[in-house]
């Protein structure tokens, strides 16, 4: 019914936009990372032709990521923070998503709305809320000392890894729960009923039916929050400010903050993106597979 060129034609503006403002910029990062620096104004000079790329800055940056190098510790720390935060997000998020999708009954709509609510609350507002609560005379300390769970007020904002992790969990968990909920919601009840009919206890039904079926959702949601978390630099700055809790994003921030080596900032960015490509590729492959299952529209 429609002309053959209609759909590609529709896709053209968006595709062109993404090429110009997504692909080309990424290539610009590569060109800067493999470029040089103008020493007078300390500006990066990108080299566009891959055959002429200057690998000096990249090898220098890579060497800093090796054990013993300056970036080794912060890279490990970043990975640890992300993994621990992810684990906590799953630990808290999975039961919540599970409950809402399977059991909520009449309150389901209310809970769904509450679930979606944090999306509309700015990340920074949520962090601001916690910075206020974690202040030395904030509600958290007051509550904990009042209930004698804590002997004396604790300095939450004094550069503690636990606070950074708490902030990361708090900040990113909504982005995990919702896809997880969507995946769990899609699981057909009949599978579970069949399992119960065959004599499985609730626990076994969960472990052998629900959990495997939700695996794709878990992995998808996990990838969805770990990718931005790896690049996070503002959360440690907001709730800590100490170098001892800095993440790799803070280093990128530093080298783009003026000075003679913006190429190192670009190189770290490229390496970060390469590291995350594995996760990115997995995620996109899963989505691709899922959308292709419902391809015929």
């Amino acid at each position, binding site marked *: 019914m429609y002309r053959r060129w209609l759909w590609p034609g529709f896709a053209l503006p968006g595709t062109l936009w993404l090429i110009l403002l997504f692909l080309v910029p990424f290539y610009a990062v590569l060109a*800067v990372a493999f*470029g*040089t*620096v*103008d*020493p*007078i*104004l*300390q*500006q*990066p*000079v*990108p*080299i566009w032709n891959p055959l*002429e*790329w*200057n*690998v*000096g*800055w990249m*090898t*220098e940056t890579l060497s800093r990521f090796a054990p013993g*190098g*300056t*970036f*080794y*510790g*912060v890279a490990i*720390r970043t990975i640890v923070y992300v993994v621990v935060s992810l684990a906590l997000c799953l630990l808290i998020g999975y039961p919540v998503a599970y409950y809402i999708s399977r059991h909520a009954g009449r309150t389901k709509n209310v809970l769904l709305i509450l679930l979606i609510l944090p999306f509309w609350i700015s990340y920074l507002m949520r962090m601001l809320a916690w910075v206020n609560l974690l*202040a*030395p005379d904030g509600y958290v300390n007051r509550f904990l000392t009042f209930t004698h769970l804590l002997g004396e007020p604790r*300095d939450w*904002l*004094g*550069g*503690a890894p636990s606070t950074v992790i708490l902030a990361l969990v708090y900040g990113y968990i909504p982005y995990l729960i919702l896809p997880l909920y969507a995946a769990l919601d899609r699981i057909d009840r009949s599978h579970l009923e069949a399992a119960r009919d065959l004599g499985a206890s609730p626990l076994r039904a969960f472990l052998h039916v629900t959990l495997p079926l939700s695996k794709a959702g878990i992995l998808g949601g996990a990838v969805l929050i770990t990718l931005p978390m790896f690049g996070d630099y503002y959360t440690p*700055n907001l709730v*800590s*400010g*100490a*170098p*001892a*809790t*800095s993440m790799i994003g*803070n*280093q990128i*921030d*530093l*080298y*783009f*903050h*003026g*000075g*003679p*080596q*913006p*190429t190192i900032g670009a190189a770290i960015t490229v390496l970060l993106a390469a590291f995350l490509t594995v996760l990115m590729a997995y995620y996109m492959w899963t989505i691709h597979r899922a959308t292709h299952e419902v391809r015929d529209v």
Partner: protein
Amino acid sequence: MMRHPKERPGRFDRRELLLGAVGAAAGISGGSFLAGCSSSTEPEGSSPTGTTGEALGPGGLPLARPDKRVKLPLWEDPIESGLEPESGGTFTVFNYPYYFYKKLLREFGEKYDVEVRYTAFDNIASGIQRLASGAVEPDVMEMTPDNLDRVVAGKLVKPLNLDYIPNLKKNVWPELVSPFYDVDSHYTVPYTCYATGIGWRSDHVKEDIRGMSQPWDIFWEAQAYKGKTALLSESRETIAMALLRKGITDINTEDPKLIDQAVADLKELYDVCNIKVGDSQFQTLPEGTSWLNQAWSGDPIAAYIYYLPKGTPASVLQYWKAPKGKVPVQNDNFCICSTTKKPVLSHLFLNYMLDNGVAHSNFVDFNGYQPPINEIDPGSLVKKGVVPRHLENAILTNNDFGPDSLQEMTLTSKGDQLWQDGYSDFLAAG
């Protein structure tokens, strides 16, 4: 690099623009009238680039030091004397945010019938980039001495004709009239001055810091103030502080061993007091969220004037800076940009800025950072109640400047890299 006290609510760690100086680079490599610098626009083989040969700064200009005076070459002739000021249209001042009292700008505009616009940059490096890339075309711009070489080599600022700026010799401290980094004031006039020292809350920090044989040691003995101490988030300031603590006064050193040792010393602070970095001490000290900070001299004054909450007595704000020869001092300047369409008026603006009344009002009514003006001295400020007596040492005098003072200045490209890498190492806490 200064943060303005009235920056609401405190801007730090802003985005750095890395605008490709495509135009500027072409201008520089084509028109660089100074010999010798191999601008590394060709692809390099293995190692990061550096300048050729002797210790030269950007553009091949010699590196100025308090005891090594440098006269900057004139890349064009200054304008002639005796011309009439331009009027009509707009006049743009390019500066840190909230760093110049708008009322004074308005009065200048009314006097010469121009509309004065104020454009802000986040920090000097991004300001220079925007200027170089053509994103802004200001008439006058604030500048720091350690970046002066860059902008002169890049022909981004115009030489001055001092006949239009009599206030320079009349009102400004003699030490800064023909400063070591710009002998005969070819390109700059001074704007504000400050030093780096220690600010603390005496209601929490009980030590007698001033009485210590080496006050900088307090950071290494600050176990009791864990999580409440901070250094400036500046590569030069932090490492310089560690050097000074060990008695090394060359804060422009490029000796890798010294820099490495300084960084190693700084790293001890993680375990001692879980040190933080930031530039917000003018707010966090009066708020009480921080107790012991490396601080610029304008910070306690700004804290006292603007940020002290009601109920907190001013006496809890304390400041120390080292005596001359051991304290890093710095001053900001103003230049005329090459992009100006009103060169005469620009000169007159610089003169206006150095007028005693204008400079005083800018400082006391708005800025919080003192201008190096003869009439403004600590005694009179204390008497007028601008500054409490116990913070008198946060005011500088002309004696703080001279050939034996310490000032962070331009380094060679290699030196810059060493310092930045050192700071990156400290920040990574690896």
